[in-house]
């Protein structure tokens, strides 16, 4: 029986005091800076003898430099914890943070490779490359990428089966050794059913990242397919669609979830009807997209539209009706229920955004030029207006994935999630909150994970917005 792991392991006695001192100094510097910015005058220019101006280094500048170096110092120490975790031998020496860092090795490797390649070729990569000019965007992208890679490599990262309950580890604190197994620990402790919190958090990333982006993409398909004609044609169609959208938006989200995501409702078949209505939109979208562009070249048109129809309807039959003849596409009925509700909640907002952008863009000259050339309305909408609306839409897409993650968490929090056993973050928070004030770790770990992912998406969206505005 070995001892509890410490948080920082062998590096702790050296690095902990250092980190504490650096953080304290940094906070002091920030407070001073804030006070100075309120009182100091910005006038630090000196007129030289030859009539030129020179800036003098005032106290604010010195303080700014000090704060920057301190921040770098703090980051260096944090990096040292992670690197030492990778190189030090044995889990007691690594500590909890180090051991986790060692578990995450595939993620670090993938992150380094991605960033190195992207930074090297950033001038050739369009908007994606420009993202690397904005520090905020880069940090956000890094966080998002971290979770994406975690989801991909989850099988390598986890230390235990996320559903296995090991006796004697109920509600144990982080770093508890697993009895009977050598060099095996519950790195972030055990939850109320004696499952490994760390492995559940890692597996939860896979759950969340499998649903949220897909649901957001579907919501965008619905919103774009309906928003384009509503904004472009206006009139009765617009009034009708806007009324429906406002109807859905006027529903408090929680209430809608309580009405839509219950086990009973599956019996009535409403989720399947909704799915049938919502999932057809991507197929319609791509068919119209190809047809409007290539209808002058029937051979090409037939190939594209035919392929879309075959693949689209195949997936459609499987996802919506669970009737795929080959059995490739299928969705758990519970998951379908959650998925459909999330798409249903998000689509009206996307519709409103797209409609607003189209109303703005349809007065542009290139639209008038297209109309004069005799282009069809769908060509103008899909090939002239939509590409010019991509900036705000990409930004909103990032934000909306974050929002969808929050929604999924909310569902889990109210026990309406995918399944009670599921390691997704919302359900785990719900499990953990009952004993929150006594055993905080089972709830706080997924909470922090969810927060960091959403924060990363928000920062990424902010960076993208900044960079796309620069064009």
């Amino acid at each position, binding site marked *: 029986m070995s001892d509890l792991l410490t948080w920082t392991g062998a590096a702790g006695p050296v690095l902990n005091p250092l980190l504490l001192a650096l953080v304290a100094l940094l906070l002091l510097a920030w407070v001073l*800076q*804030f006070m100075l*910015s309120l009182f100091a005058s910005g006038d630090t220019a000196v007129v030289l003898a030859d009539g030129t101006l020179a800036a003098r280094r005032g106290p604010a500048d010195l303080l*700014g430099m000090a704060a920057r170096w301190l921040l770098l110092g703090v980051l260096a120490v944090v990096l040292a914890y992670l690197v030492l975790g990778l190189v030090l031998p044995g889990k007691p020496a690594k500590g909890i943070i180090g051991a986790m860092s060692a578990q995450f090795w595939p993620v670090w490797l993938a992150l380094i490779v991605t960033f190195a390649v992207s930074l090297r070729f950033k001038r050739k990569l369009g908007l994606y490359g420009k993202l690397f000019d904005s520090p*905020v965007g880069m940090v956000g992208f890094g966080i998002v990428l971290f979770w994406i890679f975690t989801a991909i490599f989850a099988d390598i990262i986890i230390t235990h089966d996320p559903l296995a309950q090991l006796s004697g580890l109920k509600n144990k604190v982080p770093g508890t050794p697993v009895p009977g197994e050598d060099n095996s620990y519950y790195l972030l402790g055990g939850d109320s059913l004696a499952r490994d919190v760390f492995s559940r958090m890692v597996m939860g990333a896979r759950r969340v990242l499998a649903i949220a982006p897909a649901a957001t993409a579907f919501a965008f398909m619905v919103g774009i397919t309906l928003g384009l004609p509503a904004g472009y044609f206006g009139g009765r169609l617009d009034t009708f669609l806007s*009324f429906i959208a*406002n*109807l859905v938006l*006027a*529903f*408090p*989200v*929680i*209430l809608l979830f*309580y*009405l*839509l995501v219950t086990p*009973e*409702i599956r*019996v*009535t078949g*409403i989720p399947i009807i909704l799915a049938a209505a919502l999932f057809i939109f991507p197929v319609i979208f791509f068919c119209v997209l190809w047809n409007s562009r290539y209808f002058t070249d029937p051979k090409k048109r037939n190939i594209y539209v035919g392929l879309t129809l075959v693949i689209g309807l195949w997936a459609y039959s499987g996802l919506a009706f669970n009737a795929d003849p080959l059995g490739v596409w299928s969705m758990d009925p519970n998951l379908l229920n959650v998925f459909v509700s999330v798409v249903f909640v998000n689509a009206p907002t996307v519709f409103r955004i797209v409609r607003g952008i189209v109303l703005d863009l349809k007065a542009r000259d290139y639209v008038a030029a297209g109309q004069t050339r005799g282009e069809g309305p769908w060509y103008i909408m899909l090939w002239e207006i939509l590409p010019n609306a991509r900036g705000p839409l990409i930004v909103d897409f990032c934000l909306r994935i*974050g929002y969808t993650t*929050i929604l999924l*968490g*909310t569902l889990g*929090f*109210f026990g309406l999630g995918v399944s009670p056993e599921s390691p997704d973050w*919302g359900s785990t*928070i719900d499990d*953990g*909150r009952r004993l*929150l*004030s*006594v*055993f*905080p*770790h089972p*709830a*706080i770990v997924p*909470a*922090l994970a*969810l*927060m960091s992912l*959403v*924060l990363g*998406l*928000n*920062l990424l969206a*902010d960076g993208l917005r900044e960079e796309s505005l620069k064009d």
Partner: protein
Amino acid sequence: MLKFVLRRSLVMLLTALCLTFIVFFMTNLAPNLEKLAKSEASARMSDDEVASWLEKNGFGQPLLVRYGEWLGVLPGWTVTENGETRGRCIASPASAADAPAFCGVLQGDWGTSTVFKDSVGSILSRSLGATAWLMLWVMIVMVPTSLLLGVLSGMREGSKLDRVLSTVAIASTATPEYVSGVILVVIFASATAGLSPLLFEWGLISSKTLFLGTATSAMDGITFWNFALPVLTIALYGIGYIARMTRASMTEVMVQQYIRTARLKGVSFRQVVIRHALRNALIAPFTVIMLQFPWLLNGVVIVETLFNYKGFGWTLVQAAGNNDIELLLGCSVVAVFVVLVTQLMSDIGYVFLNPRIRLA
């Protein structure tokens, strides 16, 4: 103006009818009714018995008729059985003769809750009272804080203060209530983690935790110690959003000609911000704050569940979780009403505040 308000009100009425009908439809689905029959009469009923129970209790009529009865525009159902007349509007067989024909939401009769064994009206008024206190404090905390943050970061766009405050705003919008609530409880109200054990050790607090982890005691008397965490949890999520909107509108105002003129005239920066910029910069946040109400509703449900505060959100969760159809319908009406009224107020307020918009 009057025409605009009238038209908006009409659309609102139509929306309210549609929404309540959808909720009515969704809560009166066959499986829900079956569950209701089994919980009210006997859990071991056969399908035939369930059907006859539903028939006897007025659930056999078409959905639209029942919706009309619930709304109070159609007379309530009556059944005469063994010489006894029972019905929707009849409280006891003895008073069957002088019972009113109509009893629905329009007549102020919201039905009876099956979980709390009380009339829905009194449950709702009690829980809304509790939630009103919560909302009041949230508003008191949220609105000034977020406006201050937004104005401070928007008055000098791109400055260090702006960047720091914007990051804070982004972080707060990225933290949903169930995450910030958990974090706040762990930091301030946990006996084993966060600040409380430290403070207890140093003898600064006499109880085990600094704040209380539940707000149940706030039902009897609100104190700082039982109410600060729920209020802060709801406010935090909204602060970021309103602050970002205020910042956007402030930066837009700060590059206007009249601001430059005022600066060139020699008015101090502080005066320019307070006297010239603020008034125009606060129009957009007004609508945003109004439109935040539906979101606050969301937050209220989460926070009241997390902190076990028996207000409107808690009631909604209980009603939905226990298949309490009439209570859930009542909650929905209130929620929909709040959303629509705030939308209307935000529209009208925007027109009033912004003289550039003229409506025919």
